[in-house]
């Protein structure tokens, strides 16, 4: 019996390449003196190599390792997204950590290890690989959230993330066990064929409900969102940038694959549950966002609200909704990375300079930076011509197509709330006098990354077909 063939290895080459480079980086970290810089360059090379592999496998449309992993198309698309996000967050992290004097090689290794988990999530064709991907990603995130070993806020954020993350894993796993028990398989491709028989079994539906809880935690949907504000605030800013973009995108990519199974049956009950989750995430995320004074915390609540918008696409149970989610994840990743990049540049040691007040008068002191931040805020609000608008349009359109018009109206109403706190940043930057006149030093690497993000959201906002054409072969 053949266990695996060379084509399996080629198909999973992005994961293998990144794993190899992360081990090399870990070794280099142990063997080379003052290794942080060396490890940084190894990580960049490793990520670029993995991007190359993912692009090479894009045109394949297969599965690898006895239907455990998807190859090509969807998996490659998301692999490139996660790797680009990882690369950008490394570029934001390096100057930031040097300034904070916490510049160690382990950081880059951990980023790569969590990216391996993301790649597995995006490629999961089986609930086992989805579970493993979530864990590989999360265990690295727990450590990254607590990266400032000596700081209590970072410790606290890591502990909360760890306890609630592990708790949600228990639910996810119980769901997988129940689905396995009722269908006799954990493979999503085979569950589809078993589903009509298992459909009437309440145990089976409870299984999907438990999986929904598990994924709900990871994508930060209400009512499973309690950890988000604390973790995002306490973790180092580049880690927050990475978690809120890459982590969310990875959880959603597996969520979409897993839930395409029950959703393909147009199960009304499950659609309604997802729709209620979407509505409550949009409402509470935006509602609590209004009262925040700390920008990192504001973006945490905004991230809950954005999870709600994406769940609208999932609730619609159409391929239009899935495409909307995919596009939204790309636009959200670029927008949020850019916004967090700017926050990381302006932040001072010990988490100072994070409130709205500290952004007062930024337009006079650094007009370019203020303009970029305004672009990201407009994109998060969903104002054309930025990518955030196109993403929202497709998500709400998918809801209308599936007779969930109430959800689309609700989404538009709640995003009106969000205008207040996003535009508040712009108002502070442009219409308030500066209280702080210290000179702002901009690290070149971070600034370049932020500009690339801004170009990305403009490009995808004006030419969304760039992404949608790629998606034609995926869904």
């Amino acid at each position, binding site marked *: 019996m053949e266990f695996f063939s060379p084509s399996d290895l080629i198909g999973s080459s992005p994961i293998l390449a990144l794993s190899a480079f992360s081990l090399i980086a870990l070794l280099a970290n142990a063997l080379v003196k003052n290794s942080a810089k060396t490890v940084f360059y190894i990580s960049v090379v490793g990520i670029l190599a993995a991007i190359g592999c993912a692009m090479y496998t894009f045109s394949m449309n297969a599965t690898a390792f006895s239907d455990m992993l998807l190859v090509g198309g969807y998996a490659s698309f998301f692999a490139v997204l996660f790797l680009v996000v990882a690369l950008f967050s490394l570029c934001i992290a390096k100057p930031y950590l040097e300034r904070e004097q916490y510049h160690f090689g382990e950081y880059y290794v951990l980023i790569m290890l969590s990216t391996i988990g993301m790649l597995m999530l995006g490629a999961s064709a089986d609930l*086992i690989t989805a*579970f*493993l991907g979530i*864990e590989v990603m999360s*265990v690295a995130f*727990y*450590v990254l959230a*607590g990266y400032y*070993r*000596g*700081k*209590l*806020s970072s*410790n*606290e*954020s*890591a*502990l*909360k993330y*760890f*306890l609630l993350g*592990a*708790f949600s*894993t*228990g639910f996810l*796993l*119980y769901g*997988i*066990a*129940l689905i*396995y*028990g009722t269908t*006799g*398989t*954990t493979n999503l491709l085979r569950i589809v064929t078993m589903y009509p028989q298992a459909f009437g079994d309440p145990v089976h539906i409870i299984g999907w409900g438990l999986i929904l809880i598990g994924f709900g935690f990871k994508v930060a949907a209400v009512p499973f969102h309690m950890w988000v*504000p*604390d973790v995002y*605030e*306490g973790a180092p800013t580049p880690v927050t940038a990475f978690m809120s973009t890459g982590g969310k995108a990875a959880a959603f990519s597996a969520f979409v694959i897993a839930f395409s199974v029950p959703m393909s049956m147009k199960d009304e009950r499950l659609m309604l549950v997802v729709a209620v989750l979407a509505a409550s995430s949009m409402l509470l995320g935006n509602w*609590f966002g209004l*009262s*925040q004074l700390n920008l990192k*915390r504001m973006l945490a609540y905004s991230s809950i609200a954005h999870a709600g918008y994406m769940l609208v696409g999932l609730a619609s149970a159409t391929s239009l909704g899935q495409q909307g989610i995919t596009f939204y994840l790309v636009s959200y990743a670029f927008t949020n990375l850019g916004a967090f990049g700017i926050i990381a540049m302006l932040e001072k040691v010990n988490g100072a300079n994070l409130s709205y007040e500290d952004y007062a008068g930024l337009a006079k002191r650094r007009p370019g930076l203020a303009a970029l931040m305004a672009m990201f805020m407009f994109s998060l609000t969903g104002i054309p011509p930025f990518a955030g608008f196109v993403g929202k349009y497709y998500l709400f359109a998918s809801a209308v197509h599936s007779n969930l018009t109430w959800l689309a109206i609700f989404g538009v109403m709640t995003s009106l709330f969000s205008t207040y706190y996003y535009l508040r940043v712009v108002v502070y930057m442009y219409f308030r006098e500066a209280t702080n006149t210290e000179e702002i030093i901009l690290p070149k690497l971070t600034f370049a990354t932020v500009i690339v993000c801004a170009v990305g959201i403009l490009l995808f906002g004006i030419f969304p077909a760039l992404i949608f054409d790629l998606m034609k072969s995926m869904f």
Partner: protein
Amino acid sequence: MIPLNHYLLLSAFLFSCGVLGVVVRRNAIVVFMSIELMLNAVNLSLIAFSQFLGDATGQMLVFFVMVVAAAEAAVGLAIIISLFRNKQTVNIDEINILKW
């Protein structure tokens, strides 16, 4: 032979004990132990299903769960220790500097 339902009920009972422990207990280490209890309750279900379906997938998943639980224990205890070094407590009610 013991019927499948007995295993499933025991597993559901253990899982509920774990969830209750996480919600009620305030010591971070006890909370963590309760989470481990949840994972092992799931393992019991998986093995029972695997045995009754005559299929090895469930047993294979149990090995993965055990490996993941070990990795989580290593990371989780390290996080608890680094917190204890800074604050001399593992009571999660006292760990509350991040608030809205």
